[in-house]
């Protein structure tokens, strides 16, 4: 029988502490065949299980250009994520996916790309960032604007350092006012404001943004003010999900099922959607 609710078993190969209550797991499929054949596209998500506690939805935070494993990054915020946070290297958990649509990275060849992320919104964007950096010559300028509440809350600190150091990425880091430390060298301000100051040029550019719903709303406005076209601004929605496959009725915005037709949308598509996310 083909059981759409049955997860695959995965082993936690490595754990990275990203920020208070935020950690990443590097996961490999127990089934060696699946390890070799598993494919996904950047922007897709999965349902991750802590057995006995249930499932949670996270994006696949690694890039499809990196084969053999997947990575997820999550914030401890409830029952399932609390349970996952207690697992150690070598432990087993469940994964089903990949689900949903993806960022059309192939269509962006030759374009400048601007990434704008807030807090725990960086994981889905990270998948696109690495996807693009692994084929760096295919794209123009790359700008990353990333902000979090406090310095401690910035995730992927090692990678931020790497992106800062490599010469072919323009990284702007920010923390909310009051969130800075004495030796903080980045910007201070909310992401939409910092983006406005950074003012990446809109011509021949696409933008990718993810963060809390309120941030996304303001960032979309800012991008339009900067001259970005609605069809070239992408975001990913995080409506609550349970099934991931269009059945359970939880993720819809009007008649649009985010788990199936999303989670990746352009600003133009969002505008056509009901105001319900």
């Amino acid at each position, binding site marked *: 029988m083909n059981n*759409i609710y049955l997860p695959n078993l995965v082993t936690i190969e490595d754990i990275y502490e990203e920020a208070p209550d935020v950690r990443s797991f590097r996961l490999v499929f127990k089934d060696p065949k699946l390890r070799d054949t598993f494919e996904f596209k950047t922007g897709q998500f999965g349902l991750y299980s802590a057995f006995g506690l249930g499932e949670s939805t996270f994006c696949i935070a690694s890039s499809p250009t990196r084969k053999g494993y997947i990575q997820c990054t999550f914030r401890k915020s409830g029952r399932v994520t609390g349970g996952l946070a207690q697992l150690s290297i070598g432990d087993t*958990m*469940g994964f089903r996916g990949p689900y949903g649509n993806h960022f059309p990275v192939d269509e962006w060849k030759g374009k400048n790309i601007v990434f704008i992320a807030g807090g725990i919104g960086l994981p889905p964007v990270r998948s696109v960032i690495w996807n693009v950096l692994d084929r760096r010559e295919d794209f123009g300028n790359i700008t990353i604007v990333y902000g979090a509440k406090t310095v401690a809350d910035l995730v992927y600190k090692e990678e931020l350092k790497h992106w800062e150091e490599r010469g072919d990425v323009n990284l702007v880091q920010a923390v909310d006012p009051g969130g800075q430390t004495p030796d903080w060298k980045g910007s201070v301000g909310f992401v939409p404001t910092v983006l406005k100051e950074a003012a990446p040029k809109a011509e021949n550019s696409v933008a990718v943004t993810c963060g*809390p719903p309120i941030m996304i709303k303001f960032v979309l406005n800012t991008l339009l003010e900067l001259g970005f076209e609605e069809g070239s601004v992408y975001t990913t929605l995080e*409506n*609550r999900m349970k099934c991931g496959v269009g059945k*359970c009725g939880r993720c819809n915005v009007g*008649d649009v099922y985010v788990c199936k037709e999303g989670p990746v949308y352009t600003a133009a598509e969002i505008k056509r959607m*009901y105001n319900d*996310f």
Partner: protein
Amino acid sequence: MADKILKKAGLGALIESVTGKGGRFVAPTTDSRQVVFKKVKSAEEVATDYILARNSFKEFLFPQTEVVAEFTMSKDSVDMKGVEVYAPQTVVFGARPCEAASLAGMRALFTWDFIDEFYTKREENTVVVTVACTKGDDACFCTTVNLSPESTEGTDVYLREAADSYIVQAVTEKGKKFVETHAAVFSEGNAKAEPLFMPEKIANIDIAKVSARLKDKTHYDDKVWARLTSKCIGCGACTFVCPTCRCFDIVDEGTAFEGERRKNWDSCQYDTFTLHASGHNPREHQHQRWRNRFMCKFHFYPEKFSSKGCVGCGRCIRVCPVRLDITEVMEEFSK
């Protein structure tokens, strides 16, 4: 030409014929003074004088709770396996034409790209034997949603009541096979069908208009939602009795060593249904949740699956503790 007849006195023989082959026979039966669909073993249990069972028969295709996988855990291993679908040969006897018409939408939803075999296998093994309505009440409004006691959508075998028998019409291939399989209990004859109960079409409702209004996004923040539906207390009763509601939750039950993953009925009327872990809730107010239910029925199902999201059975009206009547909202959106 003679009709195919099922004698009312022969119902017991039909039940025996079905259960004797290992099938389950589901019919309206009186339980705590309410008529409900339940598994029955004898004709004595089957209610004859009823308008509509209080529950919909969907729970025999899509159970209130169902194990989809089992797991065992030890110190260094976890084993997880799916379970076989419990899909016995089932006869749903005494369904009404309205609720039978819910099956097309349910099937479309459960097979939309990803096939939920827990639903499809059970549905495939189910024969819906509909008994056309000879009585109804004020809550019935099938005719307003373009159905009627004469409609056979979703029905495999359609029965018209006569004095001491049913006149039998096998509608689908599955229905024909059912009649052949249990040929001994059917006979040829002539009977005079009792008149059908035809609910009057609600004059101020035009469901094509309702769907058109919902398609136009401007209604979304209309104050009309709050005005008409704020009295909803979010109990979810309407969604559980509705033949087309199918929202569910996925939860784990068990100990630290073994357990199971279950699909449980859930309701879009609950305030935690869409609540994000961050505290953000896209449907924060009850009227937004109610709007979702209404849109699911009159926009999502028709638009996505060209099928009915509401079959006009009236169950939600009968069961609502605050007398929130879906037809009043339909009237508003027909303006």
